[in-house]
C-alpha cells in the first residue's frame, strides 16, 4: 500500500531551514552542557589551543546532519491526511489525520519568501503532542493544506450539513471589514507590544544566568572591579557605570520593541463563522488559525507596563494546553479597552460578578516566611518581612476573585498587573475539592477545576459555597453532550 505512494522530497532550499533547525537543536543540547564545557575549558589548559579545530569540527558535523536530515525527509499528502517520514538514525513515519490536527501554522521565513515557499507546522491533538514541520513547500500549497484541515474538521463537525464552499475557501483573502469579526493592529499598537513585556524579568533572568555559574560569575565580578579601579573616585565610577547600565537597558528595551514589532507587524485577525485566523510578521510571516468550538480557555493579561499603557494581551488555548508552548498559542498581543470589549462580546464572555474568597486566604505563607527570615536574619528583618508580606498578601487577597454564571467560570488575580482566566464551564474535565486541617477548623476548602488547557485554582472558599460550586459545575457538565473540542 505505502509502496505505491509517491513520497515527495523537499526543494533544495529547505537545506537552509534544516541548517537553522540543527543549529537550534545543537544549541538546546549544548546549553545543558555549558557547566561541563566551562569546567573542561578551565581544567584542561591544552584544550584551549584546539578551540578553532573543535569549532570547525562542530560546523562540519552540523553540515553533515543538515544534509542527512534533508535527504531522509519525505512527505506525502493524501485525501484527509498527511504522512511524513523522517529521522537520521531512528526513522519515524508519522500519519497525521487532518481531523486530529490541533493547530496548523503557515510560516514564511525571510529566506523563503522571495521564492514563494513556506514552512507548514502541524500539531496533533494526541496526549503527547507531536509536531511536524514541512519546510520549503510552496506557500499556496501550504495554505491549501491549512484550508483542507479546517474544512475536514468542519465536515467532521457538521457531517450532514453541506459545507458552505464560498465561506470555506480562502479565509486569507477576507478583509476584516468583510468578515463576521476582525480587526487590524496599527503600527503604533504593534510598537507597544515590546514595551508591555516585563523587561526587568528578562534582565533578572540574564543576571542570574551570569552569576549562577561560579566561573563566569567570578570573571564578571573581576571585570567590574577593574572597571571601578580605573576611576579616581567611587562616585564617578558609580555615575559612569550607572549611565552605561541605563543605556544598556534602553538598548535592551528598544531591541525587545523591535523584536515584537517584527513578529507582529501588520497583525490582522478575521473570524468567519467558526474559524478564526490571524496573520502577522515583517521578515517572516505567520498565519495561525483555530476553531471557536475548540476553545478551552481564554486568558486576559495585563502586566504592570500594560497597565501604564492601558493595553491588554489575550491568549486563547485549545486542548493540550498543558504541553503547549507559550508561543504556540493563539495570541492577540495588544488590545486597548474598546477592542478588548469587542473581543469579549464576540467570544460571548459574560459580564463578571466577582466573588471574593474567605479572609483566611490573606495571611497564607506569611507566618512561615517570617519564621524563616527570623531564623536566618534576626528579629528586625523578620518584622520587616512580616509587614511587607502582610501588605502584599492583603492586596493579593483583595484582588483574588472568581465568577461563575452557569456558562463561564472565571478567575481573576494579580498584584500590580492583572490576569483573568475564563473557561467554558461545561467543558470542565474534572473538579477536585481539597481541604487541609486548618481549613477544616475554619470551614473553608479549595477547588481545582481542570479544563483541557489548564487548571483554575480557587483557594479558600467557604465549605458550603465550595460544595455548591462543585455541584453546579457537575450539573452543567454531566448532561451537556454538545461538542467540547
Amino acid at each position, binding site marked *: 500500500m505505502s509502496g505505491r505512494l509517491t513520497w515527495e522530497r523537499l526543494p533544495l532550499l529547505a537545506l537552509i531551514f534544516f541548517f537553522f533547525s540543527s543549529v537550534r537543536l545543537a544549541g538546546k543540547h549544548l546549553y545543558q552542557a555549558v557547566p561541563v564545557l566551562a569546567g573542561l575549558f578551565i581544567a584542561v589548559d591544552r584544550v584551549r589551543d584546539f578551540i578553532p579545530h573543535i569549532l570547525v569540527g562542530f560546523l562540519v558535523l552540523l553540515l553533515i546532519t543538515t544534509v542527512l536530515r534533508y535527504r531522509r525527509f519525505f512527505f506525502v499528502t493524501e485525501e484527509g491526511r498527511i504522512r511524513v517520514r523522517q529521522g537520521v538514525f531512528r526513522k519515524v513515519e508519522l500519519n497525521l489525520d487532518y481531523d486530529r490536527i490541533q493547530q496548523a501554522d503557515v510560516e514564511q521565513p525571510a529566506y523563503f519568501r522571495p521564492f514563494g515557499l513556506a514552512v507548514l507546522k502541524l500539531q496533533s491533538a494526541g496526549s503527547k503532542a507531536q509536531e511536524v514541520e514541512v519546510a520549503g513547500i510552496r506557500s499556496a500549497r501550504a495554505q491549501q493544506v491549512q484550508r483542507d484541515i479546517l474544512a475536514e474538521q468542519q465536515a467532521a463537525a457538521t457531517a450532514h450539513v453541506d459545507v458552505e464552499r464560498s465561506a470555506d475557501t480562502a479565509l486569507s483573502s477576507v478583509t476584516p471589514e468583510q468578515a463576521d469579526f476582525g*480587526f487590524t493592529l496599527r503600527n503604533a499598537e504593534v510598537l507597544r507590544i515590546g514595551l508591555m513585556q516585563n523587561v526587568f524579568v528578562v534582565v533578572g533572568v540574564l543576571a542570574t544566568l551570569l552569576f549562577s555559574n561560579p566561573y563566569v560569575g567570578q570573571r564578571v565580578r573581576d571585570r567590574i572591579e577593574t572597571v571601578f579601579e580605573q576611576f579616581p573616585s567611587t562616585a564617578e565610577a558609580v555615575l559612569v557605570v550607572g549611565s552605561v547600565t541605563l543605556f544598556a537597558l534602553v538598548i535592551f528595551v528598544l531591541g525587545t520593541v523591535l523584536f515584537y514589532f517584527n513578529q507582529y507587524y501588520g497583525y490582522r485577525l478575521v473570524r468567519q463563522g467558526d474559524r478564526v485566523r490571524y496573520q502577522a510578521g515583517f521578515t517572516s510571516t505567520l498565519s495561525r488559525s483555530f476553531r471557536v468550538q475548540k476553545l478551552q480557555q481564554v486568558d486576559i493579561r495585563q502586566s504592570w507596563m500594560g497597565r501604564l499603557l492601558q493595553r491588554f494581551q489575550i491568549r486563547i488555548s485549545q486542548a493540550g494546553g498543558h504541553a503547549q508552548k507559550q508561543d504556540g498559542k493563539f495570541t492577540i498581543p495588544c488590545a486597548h479597552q474598546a477592542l478588548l470589549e469587542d473581543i469579549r462580546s464576540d467570544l460571548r464572555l459574560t459580564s463578571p460578578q466577582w466573588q471574593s474568597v474567605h479572609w483566611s486566604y490573606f495571611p497564607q505563607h506569611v507566618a512561615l516566611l517570617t519564621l524563616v527570615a527570623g531564623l536566618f536574619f534576626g528579629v528586625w528583618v523578620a518584622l520587616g518581612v512580616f509587614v511587607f508580606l502582610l501588605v502584599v498578601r492583603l492586596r493579593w487577597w483583595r484582588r483574588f476573585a472568581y465568577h461563575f454564571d452557569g456558562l463561564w467560570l472565571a478567575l481573576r488575580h494579580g498584584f500590580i498587573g492583572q490576569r483573568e482566566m475564563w473557561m467554558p464551564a461545561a467543558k*470542565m474535565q474534572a473538579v477536585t475539592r481539597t481541604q487541609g486541617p486548618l481549613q477544616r477548623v475554619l470551614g473553608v476548602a479549595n477547588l481545582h477545576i481542570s479544563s483541557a488547557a489548564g487548571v483554575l485554582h480557587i483557594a479558600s472558599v467557604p465549605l458550603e459555597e465550595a460544595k455548591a460550586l462543585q455541584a453546579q459545575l457537575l450539573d452543567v457538565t454531566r448532561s451537556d453532550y454538545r461538542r467540547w473540542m
Partner: protein
Amino acid sequence: MQEPNWQAVSPKYTHLLRIDKTLFVLMLVIPLTVAVVFVERIPLWVGYIGWGSLLLIWLGMVFLWAPRRYRVTAYAVLPEEVHFRVGALWLRHTAVTHNRIQHLEIEQSPFERLLGLSRLIIFTAGGSGADLILPGLPVDRATSLRDDLLKIIREEPQLDEPITVAGKTESAESQRDTGTSL
C-alpha cells in the same frame, strides 16, 4: 451538595498500603545500615537513633495510618459521574462526569496481583491532575466497573452543536457590526 452513596474499597487495600509503606521504610533502612556498618566515622548511636525512629515510623504507618487511610478512601459511581474521596486530615474529593472520560485503564502492580486487587484509572483530557485513580478494587469489580463505564460512554449521544460559539447572540444578530478597525 448532596453526599453521593460512598462505597468502600476492598479491605485488602489496607494490606497493600502496609506492603507499600514497609518497602518505603526498608528503602531508608538499607542505606542507613550500610552507612553505619561501613563508614567508621559514623558512631553506632547514630544508627540506633535512626533505626529507632524508622521503627516508630513503620509501626505508625502499618498499625495506625494504613487502617485509617483505608477507612477514608471511598468512591461513588452515579448515573452520570464518578466521585473519589480520600484523606482524613488532608481531604481530596475529585469528580469526573461520564461525558468527559477519554479512556479507561486497569493497572496491577505485582503486589496488587498477589492480593487480587487492581486500580481503575479514568483518563480525562485535563492532564495528569485531572485523571481519576480508583485504587484497591477487587479485580472483577474493576473490570465490571470499566465495562459499565465503557457501555455508558459508547451509548452517549453526540450532538453536532458546539458548546462555544462566537459572534453576537441570536437576539443581537440583526444589529451585526462590520468589524472594528483600530
